[in-house]
């Protein structure tokens, strides 16, 4: 049974999530502040940590906790689930090594799906690559099972949300995906500019590996499309 830790200072939310995830068959532990969470993590690590950024009186308690967790384990999946949706916070959270950054208006079903996907990715690492799960688009290679993206045989470090967006675009090259379509494919509900900034971040990650990358094309007023090189 997978063990999930929820660090959240709002009792109602913590307990709601705990109950919901328990019914999904996870073993869930809730912590109300950073100190108790760190104490428990030092003894044993969970399989997944869902962390709020503002913890009690610590405004950035979640960030600190994330750093502690990363020092304990390089691979432990961490999801930020927070009310803070500013660009800076998102970038900060992802830079610290979180696997996803979700805002609290996400529905429980989406959260459950996201958690399931993350566990699936973890499990997939242990299994041999399934050729049918691979998607080839020129230099791009998508492993839908492990949720990994390779560009020119190099791994592109994408979050789950980003992976789903690339997947959505690359599935049908040349077709325009509107922002709404991208949103539903990535299983998030956000505003248009968040999608724009997600796309920007994806581009940056590819360009970090290859200066000449320009496969994601903006179609003004409509959306984005994967331009086959």
């Amino acid at each position, binding site marked *: 049974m997978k063990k999930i830790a929820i660090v959240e200072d709002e009792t*109602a939310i913590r307990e709601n999530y705990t109950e919901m995830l328990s019914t999904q068959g996870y073993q869930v532990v809730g912590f109300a502040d950073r100190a108790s969470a760190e104490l428990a993590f030092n003894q044993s690590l969970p399989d997944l940590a869902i962390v709020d950024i503002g913890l009690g009186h610590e405004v950035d308690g979640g960030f600190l906790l994330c750093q502690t967790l990363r020092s304990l384990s390089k691979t432990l999946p961490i999801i930020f689930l927070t009310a803070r949706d500013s660009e800076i916070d998102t970038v900060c959270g992802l830079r610290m090594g979180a696997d996803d950054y979700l805002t609290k208006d996400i529905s429980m079903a989406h959260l459950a799906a996201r958690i399931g996907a993350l566990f699936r990715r973890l499990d997939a690492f242990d299994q041999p690559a399934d050729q049918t799960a691979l998607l080839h688009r020129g230099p791009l290679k998508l492993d839908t099972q492990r949720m990994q993206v390779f560009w020119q045989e190099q791994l592109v470090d994408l979050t789950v949300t980003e992976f789903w967006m690339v997947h959505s675009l690359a599935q049908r090259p040349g077709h325009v995906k509107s922002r709404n379509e991208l949103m539903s494919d990535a299983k998030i509900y956000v505003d248009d*500019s968040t999608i724009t900034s997600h796309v920007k971040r994806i581009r940056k990650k590819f360009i970090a590996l290859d200066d000449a990358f320009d496969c994601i094309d903006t179609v003004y*007023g409509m959306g984005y499309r994967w331009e086959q090189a």
Partner: protein
Amino acid sequence: MLRLGLRTKFIFLSCFLFLLPWLGYEYVWEMEKFLRQGQEKTLVGTTRALATALHERPALFDSQTNFLDQVVKGRDLYAYNLNNPIQLDGKLSEWQPYQSLFWHYDKRYLQGLNNDHQDSDLSFDHMVGKYENYLYAAFKVTDSSLVYRAKNVLSFTRNDHLQIMLKTPEGEFKRYVVAARQDGWVNAFDASTQEPVTKIQGYFKSTNAGYNIELRFPLSMLGNKLGFAIEDWDEGKAEPQLMSTSNLQNPNDIGSVLVPSPEINRILKGMGHSGSRIWVVDNHHRVLAQSGSIHHADGVWADGLKDAPATTWWQRFEQDYLHPLYYKILTRPENEFIDTLHDVAAMQGTHIASALNGKPASSWRLTPDNKAVILSAAYPIWIQDKVIGAVIAEETTNGVRTLRNKSLEKLFNVILAVMLVGTVTLFFFASRISSRIRRLRDNAEQAIDAQGRITGKITYADSNDEIGDLSRSFANIVSRLSGYTDYLENMSSRLSHELRTPVAVVRSSLENLQMQPQSELSQKYLDRASEGVERLGKIITTMSEATRLEQSIQSAEAEEFDLTKVITGCMQGYQITYGESLFTLSLCKEPLNVSGAPEFIAQLLDKLINNALEFKTPQSTISVSLIKQEQHALLKISNQGPLLPDGLVEHIFDSMVSVRSQQHQQQPHLGLGLYIVRLICDYHHGKVAAENLDDGTGVVFTVELPIK
């Protein structure tokens, strides 16, 4: 309404400085009045001092004619002071300057009545004068027939002759006769002894009308009485005619003679250095002595004020430029003026009359040519309670006027300097103040834009005065205002942040509840609650959209892109989404390069098109046009529909402002769409404006972006 700046007002006010010269002038004028009074007193003092020297000295006046009660012109003679020596030649040319002083004797002076007497029969012009120690007399006799003294006749009275009667200083009466045998030198004879008197010399010269006689005798011979008579003998007439200045038959009737007194003159000489012209007159107004010239009598006031030649550059500047200016107003006292009292024998005037009545007095008079004012003062001379004469002193006011002019020159110099420095100082002061205030005004105007947003800070001055205070309080106000505006603008983002957690509580609770088996009724309520939470979530997302946009604008890097391409692309998208017939397009074909972020432009267009779609009347189209105007790209989106309310045109682009009427309110709306449009425009250094169409059928939004 005429607008007067601070500087103009200051300059206007500084005009009051020009009152200074007027005040100074008035002051100096008053001073001049005092000086004149002072001069008057000094002059009276001078006359009193001299009169004091002459009081109670009957000896000085004894020989004079003061004992007479009245003086008759013609009978009582006055020996004028002659300025030139007289050559005894019978030509009378030396007497020419004194022509006006000659007295004409006609039949009124005839001894014995003769009604038939003609002037051509006998008459004469005569005057006496004094030069050095001699008394001179001139006679211009008109006589129809001249009878010389016969050559071998001892008698000198049976021919035309001149009789002289005088009283010696010793009180003895003497009579002399001058009779000529021919033209030339003549001597007098004592009438009683018939001895020639060589002290009396004369010259006889016949003329066409008669003859001239000039003669002189020493003053020492003469007392205070003198009379002349001409006896005319004519051929064929038995009786000679006698015409005389006074009756010579009776010593008591002899007329007096007044010779300017050398003694008094000596005393006067002593006073001659007083800088005044001084006269001593007897109680018949006749001048006994005179000293000084009026042309040099300007009092003691201007001593030491003579113009020295300019040596320094300042003095030269003063003389060359300032003085000509000053003397346009001032009058320079003239030294050349007409003096009517030059060489007069008798002086008239109220002050003299008053002095001879025993009261010192002074008077002012203008010279006939109006060039100078002459002040004269008179003081009585007393001998035993009787006024026997008066001392008169005269001065021009030129000294005072020179003094006044000098002080006015100095005053004008100072005033000119004060005015110059004052005006310049005031001008710079005013300029400085007005420039500081103008800077503050510009600052304040730049700090807040037309929509009332804070766009900058006021740099406040350190100066420790009211304007500094004002600028500091302005800066304070603006910074407080900007804090408040920030608070308002961040309201939505903070609200969305704060609301998100309770919404998550409700949502997660509802979702948990959904997993439980529900009755039909509670399921219905659960669905409604979920729907409500869904809407709340949407509102929160919209609210955070603006905030996120602001953040991403801050971090966005500007790139150059083709505006035409972006807008054309977007419009194609809208045409696909909403149907082609909904839009009327007029897009420019040439590329318009704009620096910024194309996604933002797409977002801007999104908001504007959404807005137009929302408000447009059914069946109408939305017209979109893009043109290039000078260095700007002009994007216009207009739709038919309700007009903008008057008061809101300025504020329609502000956060949380919506003009939707109730029927447009099915969707949650926070009035952030146009706020986002404005943010994007600001990021691109452009402008956005909303106006009602000229024909009143709808609304047009104009976006103006600078192109590269």
